[in-house]
């Protein structure tokens, strides 16, 4: 398993100047809209606390709420399946489609199916999956995973989309007008809705007391995906539970405000029962969530409602792009979730952060994201997953800095400073500091030397 090299990948992203400029500005714009919208609600901080408490309560009583949800969904005429992991989920979906002869699956946005690599599983088994969310469709047609959990193709310029659509949908490559492009996607996706044997949605929330699946969208594609075909599927991560319908208001008031800076999504759909004469199946997926729930330092990440605000605010994410994380989840929430899937592969990700802390402040459910990033670094170090150059550098630094004598020898004389102590800070990774920055000039004396000369050993002014 190849380790993800976030620094290397981000360097490629940064070289495309138009792209990074746009990406950074677009996401910062979302952050600012989010600031304005959240400031319009004087009770914003109280809502965050409530949302956090509801999620914390639900997660600490998860088994009960899952069973309540199952009972109510069954009462509504829905068949409920349980999937331990991605493989079980994908097999369940395949069996449902296969036994009913469905060859095409239209689907709405779902990070869970990305996590399960469902398209990659179904494709070779003869099932065509059509992403119907505009951003997801762009990414599917370009053979790339989503780079952002809310705006999946945000790293692309409209000229990139024009090129992808020209290649795959036969549009005019010279026309990058957004209306033209969106209309082209709409016209080419519509027939799939009508012809598909099955439709699939994800879930923003699953309400235990009613068995309802709640989906928040801006395009209406989730409604078309599930309201047209005869076989309706919903894949839901088990952490999406909330106890009662009255709790939904807390989250709905925050979700779109925090994600996009709009008061609410265009459409908030409640799916409860199959239409007459059709079937509806819900697949409740664990895929590592129970294990995460058992991690004392990291279970809080399960409160996430996937608003993406931590990505929009993250200065590192904005300048490296979601694909540079090489994982389903990117940005601050990604770097605390991805290591639970594969510590070795994703060991670099918790270091793709300056620990500035703005992610935790924008989180609508008060996940202590930057503190978890800090904690993950300890786990990675303790489990021997730090790069040798860093581990050895830290061992050396730890020895020098623990000894006044070695420390003074390292920085004591003018001109030798940068060769020893600040080595770990400056001159690692092939002189990384000096590539794009000037190195600080070593002054003639250290502060300590000045102090001894000017205040004397007893600390008196000379």
């Amino acid at each position, binding site marked *: 398993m190849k380790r993800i090299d*976030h*620094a290397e990948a*981000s*360097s490629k992203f940064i070289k495309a100047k138009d792209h990074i400029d746009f990406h950074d500005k677009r996401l910062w714009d979302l952050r600012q809209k989010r600031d304005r919208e*959240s*400031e319009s609600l004087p009770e914003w*901080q109280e809502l965050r606390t409530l949302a956090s408490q509801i999620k914390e309560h639900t997660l600490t009583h998860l088994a009960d709420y899952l069973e309540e949800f199952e009972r109510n969904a069954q009462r509504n005429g829905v068949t409920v399946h349980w999937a331990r992991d991605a493989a079980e989920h994908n097999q369940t979906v395949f069996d449902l489609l296969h036994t009913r002869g469905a060859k095409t699956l239209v689907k709405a946005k779902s990070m869970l199916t990305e996590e399960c690599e469902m398209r990659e599983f179904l494709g070779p088994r003869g099932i065509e999956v059509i992403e119907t969310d505009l951003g997801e469709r762009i990414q599917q047609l370009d053979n790339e995973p989503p780079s952002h959990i809310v705006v999946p193709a945000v790293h692309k310029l409209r000229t990139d989309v024009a090129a992808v659509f020209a290649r795959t949908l036969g549009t005019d490559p010279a026309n990058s007008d957004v209306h033209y492009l969106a209309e082209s996607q709409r016209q080419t996706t519509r027939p799939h809705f009508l012809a598909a044997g099955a439709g699939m949605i994800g879930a923003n929330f699953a309400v235990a007391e009613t068995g309802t699946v709640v989906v928040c969208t801006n395009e209406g594609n989730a409604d078309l995906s599930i309201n047209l075909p005869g076989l309706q599927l919903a894949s839901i991560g088990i952490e999406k539970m909330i106890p009662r319908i009255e709790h939904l208001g807390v989250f709905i008031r925050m979700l779109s405000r925090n994600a996009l800076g709009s008061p609410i999504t265009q459409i908030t759909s409640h799916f409860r029962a199959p239409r007459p004469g059709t079937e509806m199946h819900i697949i409740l997926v664990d895929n590592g969530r129970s294990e995460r729930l058992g991690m004392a330092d990291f279970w809080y990440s399960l409160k996430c409602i996937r608003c993406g605000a931590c990505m929009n605010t993250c*200065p*590192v994410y904005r*300048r490296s792009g979601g694909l540079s994380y090489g994982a389903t989840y990117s940005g601050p929430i990604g770097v605390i979730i991805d290591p639970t899937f594969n510590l070795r592969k994703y060991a670099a990700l918790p*270091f*793709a*952060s*300056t*620990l*500035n*802390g*703005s992610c935790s*402040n*924008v989180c609508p459910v008060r996940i202590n994201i930057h503190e978890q990033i*800090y904690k*993950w*670094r*300890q786990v990675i170090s*303790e489990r021997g997953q730090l790069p040798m150059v*860093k581990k050895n550098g*830290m061992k050396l*630094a*730890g*020895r020098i*800095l*623990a*000894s006044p004598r070695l*420390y003074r020898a390292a*920085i004591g004389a003018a001109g030798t*400073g940068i060769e020893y102590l*600040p080595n*770990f*800070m400056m001159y*690692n*990774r092939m002189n*990384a*500091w000096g*590539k*794009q*920055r*000037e190195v*600080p*000039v070593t*002054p003639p*004396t*250290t*502060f*300590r*030397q*000045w*102090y001894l000369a000017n*205040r004397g*050993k007893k*600390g008196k002014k000379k």
Partner: protein
Amino acid sequence: MKVALFIPCYVDAFFPEVGVATLELLERLGLEVVYPLNQTCCAQPMANSGCHQEAAATEALFVRNFKGFDYIVTPSGSCTHHIRDHLTAIPQTPEVTAVRRNTFELVEFLHDILGVRAFPWAEFPHKVGLHIGCSTLRALNEAKMSEIAGMPFSKPHALLSAVKGIEFVTPARPDECCGFGGTFSVFEEPVSARMGYDKVHDHRNAGAEYIVSPDMSCVMHQKGCAERLGLPLKFIHIAQVLNGARA
């Protein structure tokens, strides 16, 4: 009042003038300040890299050097953050917790503990962009954060406002991280440098001649970026300005 001065390793090695200004300023305010001679570092570089075990001996040395003081004052927000919130690689004896509790970043010490609001000796006739490092901003809570609603406040700004002739400019993203991030600056060099470039451009576009900051590590990074870009920006620590530096 027994006050100790902690000069972080990178200030000791690269920016002794910041240590001098901090010491002189505290002395001007009538304090007797002790500089424990065996001090090195707070252990933040190791701890932020996840290397707790490697941080332990340095943390223990820090506590040996600074135990018994009423206040430990340092011109660095991130070191204060480490000591206050993260110095946990060693057993938490009463001695350790007292050192952690008594450590203050210079601005909060002046603003909150001493309550100083006047610096009659200070004059800085320049256009200034203020850079507050992320630890100083979010962990020490020295100013309002742009992502949290509320009444604007800024302790560094409040102190600098007492300096004659100073003129503030406001960049488009005043509290965007500059990308230093400790070892992040070398292990994530491409993003770090890009963030630094964006930061110094933002200040320059706002018309800043100087970037003034309570955080010298951010400044070390930004200065390196500005010099490489050839931007006519100068950098100075807030202690130097408050101590009366004119340029």
